[in-house]
């Protein structure tokens, strides 16, 4: 017999959404990609959460900083290419002002990604993250995803900085 937690973890994107709700995330700011599309639709239907659909990832980052400044726990859902394009705002706003932000990042361009044109972004992602000092971790597909989201969110708050959790397709694509 499976427990409800096991059933939830069987569908990892559901566990991600459940973790965000349980941890009190009130706002999600996003620029979508094909993996993120459906979970954003689900978030948009959540009565206790506000979804902001931004036009650019650096803009999304600033919206998230403003939301957290206003006292709302806030997550960013973006593709890794989007983090590559938000570098200036990351260092001069989010990191400079020490905003704790949870970033759930679809990790495109890995060997598991069937879309070949993402490969250049996949190769650049972690070296760039290290270069700009963006704390991050890759999800472990063999461990439950909910606690990994909570650890990432806790890291962001305890260290007063953005933290990027790099997510595989099975983690985030509904």
């Amino acid at each position, binding site marked *: 017999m499976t427990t409800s937690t096991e059933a939830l973890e069987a569908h990892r994107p559901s566990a991600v959404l459940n973790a965000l709700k349980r941890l009190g995330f009130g706002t999600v700011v996003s620029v979508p990609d094909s993996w993120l599309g459906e979970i954003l639709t689900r978030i948009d239907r959540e009565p206790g959460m506000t979804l*902001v659909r931004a036009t650019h990832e650096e803009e999304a980052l600033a*919206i998230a*900083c*403003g939301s*957290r*400044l206003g006292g709302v*726990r806030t997550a960013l859902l973006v593709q890794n290419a989007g983090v590559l394009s938000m570098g200036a705002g990351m260092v001069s706003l989010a990191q400079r002002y020490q905003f704790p932000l949870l970033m759930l990042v679809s990790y495109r361009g890995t060997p598991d990604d069937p879309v070949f044109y993402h490969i250049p972004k996949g190769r650049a992602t972690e070296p760039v993250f290290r270069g700009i000092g963006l704390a991050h971790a890759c999800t472990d597909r063999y461990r439950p995803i909910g606690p990994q989201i909570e650890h990432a*969110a*806790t890291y962001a708050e*305890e260290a007063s900085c953005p933290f990027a959790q790099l997510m595989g397709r099975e983690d985030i694509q509904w």
Partner: protein
Amino acid sequence: MVTNARPTRTDYYRVLPGSLPSRALVVTSLGNASYLWASLHHAPENFYFEDAMGLTLPLALGLAIAQPDRPVIAVEGDGALLMHMGALVTIGAMNPSNLTILLIQNGVHAASGGQALTNAALDLAQLARASGIQHAENLNAPGALAARIAAAEKRDGVGVLILATEPDIEVVRPPISLDPVATKHRFMAAIEAPRYIPTLFDGGMLERP
């Protein structure tokens, strides 16, 4: 004497403190937008940008959504707006009635020394309206600012006021340290924002002080 000279940022800023609605939060862009405002009306409810050109409006949008019961006034320049024009579309889509944007149109990148803009002659009110912001208006006189801000209380949706000014290239010396982290903590304490309360071996939550 009749003059065709545009007002200055200072002219508008002198009107602003007496025009602020009760419990207003003010977000100012980098450079003189922050330095001059800190000189004329420093308050813990001010959030000063130190850098991050172009990100004032999206930050103010996030703040307005997080604090729906407080008026949020954002001061941004035309050059910075051009760097992230998409933010106008997002603001128009979310359309928070508590957000009022004061857009300084001086035709140059004043914060970086007065370099020419890509296009200094855009009708920014029309641009805002095309972005889904119904209440957008060009102002040419500081005396009109107080009435427009007062009217914001009854406005349905975000408001944008374009303030035509002369460029102010000379850098104003701020009267206080604009240390970013101090600015953030001072602001969050002033609005009594929920704080993260940790637990020893588990994740914490945001709680009101």
